[in-house]
């Protein structure tokens, strides 16, 4: 059975990746997950310098999902390079570094800092709401999305994945803009903006009022967007949003994803990626599918 997939010239041993921000740099998972068995570890978003993140409460449960307002708390790129890259290099998996920033310069600085580091891919998180340029997120404006992709691509030494926000009218517009800017792959979806009100206290639960919805509740939206984007661009697409089982992985790949990322499921069961990988294998063998790449975009 062939499970390996190729994303922007990087060969993964299987299509299972971790979604940024739900797996840290893998340290908290080593007792449950053999990191050597993952296609790729996508680390938590990292910025040019340390960010404190938002005040609590940062997390709230909603039906079939959760809303987070972590606010990209991270130790900054220097601490990350010193502590986390050597840790991950002990394992036989690929490493993608998710980049956060508030301005184009911030993102460029991180990509530049990573030029000589031994990592495999960059993932540009352009769905961060606090940006300098006109206060509009890069991920919801096509010309901004193109501009930032170009700027980072110019300095980047590793293939560049651009991560798309679902909080837009037409996601294919942003996808094409990232493609025009020189992206090597696209990943989607980031979280959907949502909120939850405590009706007894008559106030928002999250300190920031609203946050990002993830988990099984968002899966139908994510599968639809993966299908749309895969048909709108030539780039490989990494699908995510609510993956809990191997069957969910198959669904995303049939919609057009060349690889997938498991997010919230890691938080609910730290061994989730391993269970999901086994379920994918069982599905393929049950249906006598020899090469997982054969199902990519099969419903198109």
């Amino acid at each position, binding site marked *: 059975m062939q499970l390996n997939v190729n994303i922007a010239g990087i060969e993964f041993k299987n299509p299972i990746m971790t979604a940024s*921000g*739900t*797996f*840290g740099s893998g340290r*908290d*998972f*080593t*007792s*449950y997950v053999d990191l050597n068995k993952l296609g790729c570890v996508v680390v*938590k978003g990292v910025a040019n310098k340390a960010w*404190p*993140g938002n*005040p*609590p*409460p*940062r*997390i*709230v*449960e909603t*039906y*079939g*999902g*959760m809303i*987070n307002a*972590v606010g990209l*708390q991270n130790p900054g790129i220097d601490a990350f390079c010193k502590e986390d890259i050597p840790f991950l290099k002990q394992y036989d998996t690929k490493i993608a570094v998710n980049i956060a920033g508030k301005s184009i310069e911030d993102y460029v600085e991180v990509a530049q800092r990573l030029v000589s580091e031994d990592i495999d891919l960059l993932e540009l998180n352009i769905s961060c709401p606090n940006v300098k340029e006109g206060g509009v997120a890069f991920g919801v404006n096509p010309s901004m999305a193109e501009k930032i992709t170009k700027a980072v691509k110019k300095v980047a030494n590793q293939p560049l994945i651009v991560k798309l926000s679902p909080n837009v009218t037409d996601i294919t517009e942003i996808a094409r803009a990232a493609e025009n800017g020189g992206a090597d792959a696209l990943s989607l979806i980031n979280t959907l903006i949502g909120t939850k009100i405590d009706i007894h206290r008559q106030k928002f*639960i999250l300190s920031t009022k609203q946050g990002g919805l993830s*988990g*099984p509740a968002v899966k139908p939206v994510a599968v639809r967007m993966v299908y749309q984007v895969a048909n709108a661009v030539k780039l490989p697409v990494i699908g995510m949003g609510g993956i809990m089982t191997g069957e969910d992985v198959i669904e995303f790949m049939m919609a057009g994803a060349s690889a997938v990322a498991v997010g*919230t499921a*890691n*938080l*609910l*069961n*730290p*061994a989730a990626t391993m269970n999901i990988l086994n379920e994918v294998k069982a599905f393929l063998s049950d249906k006598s599918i020899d090469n997982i790449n054969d199902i990519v975009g099969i419903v198109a």
Partner: protein
Amino acid sequence: MCETMNKSRTVCKIISNELLTDQIFEMILECPEIVNEAKPGQFVNLYCRHLGRLLPRPISVCELNKDKGHLHLIYAIMGNGTKEFSTYNAGETIDVMGPLGNGYNTDTVSDIHLIVGGGVGTPPMVELCKQLKGRKIIVVGFRDNPYLVNRLKEYGEVYVTTDDGSAGFKGNVVEFLEKKSLKGSIYACGPTPMLIGVQAYADKYNLDASLSLEERMGCGFGACVGCVTKIASNNDAGFIYKKVCKDGPVFNAKEVLFSCN
């Protein structure tokens, strides 16, 4: 790395699940691995069966029965998840992960240990009292109906406070500490306003105090950075956010910055 072994989500058998008093239940689980490893002040994640309720409900270790491999948990019905737990029957199973977090230091040498519990912050005090050596003064506060009082009496002098005065001292635990001018090494767990009061009391009389904090959790094992609390630091901001689930839930009172501080 082995400190986190055996902690993945496991299925445990429910030995019993009984109403203790109004809205308060005691659930006993068969889980020898967790019991062997757990310390007072640590917690476990309980997971709902309802597929819409994904996130863990963190519940503190109340008592450990190492001979039988039984874990005692005491929980209050607060919302839909704990309401669901209350319908479970003996013989059924529940998904559990733990033990999680850092518990209380039980090696502290002190003339007097001052144990302070408020509401559903009282359950962890049972195993703590069992393990702490030396003289213990136990002060527990409730809105109205006290519980666990007799179990705590096995380990020291117990004083009860209630908001409505229906049992024991009328008022809160901090008012009681002041009134009796109780001194010692403090171990506290309870609602945030109580912890703020205990912190101020410890500061005023220069007492050591360990506070067990509560925050909403996404994972319970350090992965989501959702459950943070402000901890004093000498950086520019004056604080850093630490994870209640992994760096706590027990913190030194001197380093905790409550939002009113």
